[in-house]
């Protein structure tokens, strides 16, 4: 038993590492296809060809591709993410603070969406086929398909400009207390919440329905347990398991959404960092930012898989065969 778990987890970890290496290759290749050489991009159109070549040599961008890839990857392994072309400073000094701010925004979104969508999904399942169910399902599905910048501008129009209850930007004045900071993050978090609500609620609903239809719930009901006790003890516990996986895989979408939300609300997180790097063709920054997003996603799915395996030994045994 224990060996099987360890074996599975090790294999899972190995696959994640392999995926990461492939991902770094893809990012590196895409970065190398970028038009215009870096020296020209930094020095501008009026610099002499001589100066451009000299800078290219300093940056090492006219060496062979495998050599450049090796330098890049071994740098990353040692915590050196390269120099930003735009700011001529280490990428890491921008990347990590930005990542931290994005995590703050993502955390606010998760704190709102997880309980909300689980309750929504369970309520829909308990009212299966009735109007409540249909309203939650159709509204959730519809909202999850509206791009974040669309719901974002509508929210700004209504809450920041119409009702004037929330600020238009996401960044609280420097040195604000935590509560004020959170207040500034609520409006930017809502577009992310709207996207995620539909997916998570859908999974929670499906899980709950499956549990409701199962033999053990029928037994519990026939035993004469009150409905609420049956739901709490037998239904919820089993219906929430698949939801964990969805929450983790949605982290990827969430980060994609951050690019848009952070640009719209002018919030200096990883999304805006990537957006600015792409606009400025600052490609060490762009590559590092995109790689960071990939790593966060791989970590999230890895954690979800591990949790799922540990919480549900049935699945693991089937898979191990």
């Amino acid at each position, binding site marked *: 038993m224990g060996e099987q778990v360890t074996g599975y987890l090790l294999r899972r970890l190995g*696959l994640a590492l*392999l*995926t*990461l290496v*492939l*991902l770094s*290759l*893809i*990012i590196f290749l*895409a*970065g190398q*296809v*970028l*038009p215009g050489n870096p020296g020209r991009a930094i020095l501008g159109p009026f610099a002499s060809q001589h100066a451009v070549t000299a800078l290219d040599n300093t940056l090492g961008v006219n060496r062979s591709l495998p050599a450049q890839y090796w330098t890049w990857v071994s740098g990353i392994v040692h915590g050196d993410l390269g120099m930003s072309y735009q700011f001529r400073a280490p990428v890491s000094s921008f990347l990590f603070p930005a990542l931290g701010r994005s995590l703050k925004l993502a955390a606010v979104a998760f704190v709102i969406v997880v309980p909300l969508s689980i309750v929504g999904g369970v309520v829909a399942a308990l009212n299966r086929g009735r109007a409540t169910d249909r309203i939650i399902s*159709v509204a959730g*599905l*519809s909202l999850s*398909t*509206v*791009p*974040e*910048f*669309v*719901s974002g*501008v*509508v929210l*700004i*129009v209504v809450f920041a*400009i119409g009702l004037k209850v929330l600020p*238009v930007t996401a960044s609280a004045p420097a040195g604000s207390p935590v509560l004020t900071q959170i207040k500034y993050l609520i409006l930017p978090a809502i577009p992310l919440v709207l996207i995620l609500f539909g997916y998570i609620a859908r999974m929670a609903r499906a899980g709950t329905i499956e549990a409701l239809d199962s033999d053990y719930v029928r037994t519990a009901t026939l035993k004469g347990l009150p409905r609420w006790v049956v739901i709490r003890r037998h239904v919820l516990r089993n219906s929430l398991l698949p939801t964990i996986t969805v929450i983790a895989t949605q982290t*990827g*979408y969430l*980060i*994609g*959404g951050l*690019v*848009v939300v952070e*640009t*719209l609300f002018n919030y200096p997180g990883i999304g805006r960092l*990537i*957006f600015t790097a*792409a*606009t400025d*063709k600052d490609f060490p920054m*762009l590559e590092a930012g*995109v790689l960071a*997003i*990939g790593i966060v*996603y*791989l970590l999230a799915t890895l954690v979800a898989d591990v949790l799922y395996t540990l919480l549900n030994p049935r699945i693991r045994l089937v898979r191990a065969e």
Partner: protein
Amino acid sequence: MADDQHRESVAAPPATGAPDGHGPAPHDPLAVGLPPATAGASGAVDVSARRIRRDHFRQLMHSKPFLVGAVLLLWWIVCAIFGKAFSPYNPVNGSLLQFNLAPSGSHWFGTDSLGRDVLSRVIVGSRDILIIAPLATLLGTAVGTAVGLVQGYFGGLVDNVVGRIVDAVLALPVVIVAFLFVVAVGPSTLTLILVIGFVFALLIARTVRTAVLQERELDYIAAARLRNESGAHIMFVEILPNVSGPILVEFTVRLGYAIFAIATLSFLGFGIQPPTPDWGADIASSYQYLAAGYWWETLFPALAIASLVVAVNLIADSIESVLIQ
């Protein structure tokens, strides 16, 4: 048509495929999208497939979300094709004296900062996105289906290698992948179609592969192998018709995502380029005036995008629930 009922009862059970070996095996009720030419090989199969298709169609016509979605989508298609003819003003050249006008009788949706009629831009703005999104999705579906068939049918090394690459690319959100490549090649309609088609191909390949893995174990494939049919023939003539249901669902769902992704890229400046009327790009150029109170320049294109994506997704969801019960 009159003897349909008769032949249906005959058509139902045989599980080992049509006798001539070229008809699709009738074990799979997901016969929607079945090309009539293949189905015609055996009369009995043909009738049952047609009946199922008619049933599905009737179910869709009774589904309220589907009808709402279809009407909305139809409206935007009409705008995309004939919009230039019936939009009240020129969407590209405005009157510079009449900028930032609030909605009124002469400008229902107001005018933007360059004096262009917002209603006209919203109507004509449906055009490019409704050309690019379906093309990208079609490309992705075609390539993804082929890759998924090969992956699922051959399995082994091919499957593993492709599977790893798919995993790696899918660790990134579509918008980010598009970012990387659009920055590299420069924004153009063709780049958008290729990039989105490429990412979708990977996603669709995954779905098709799973469906093929289930099909591969069935008797009609073993029979086809015994008849010495080529791999290509088995994949595209035997298996493909039987996995067309999930592929159709995948196409409609991805179409919604394509619109989502293109609108988002246009908003960020990496999609459809101004001055072509486009909802995402229009929102990008007007949202900084929100604080000044010119809400109509942003709100109406935003509602247009919302109505289009919701319409496509209502349709996709209805088709999915009819096909996969």
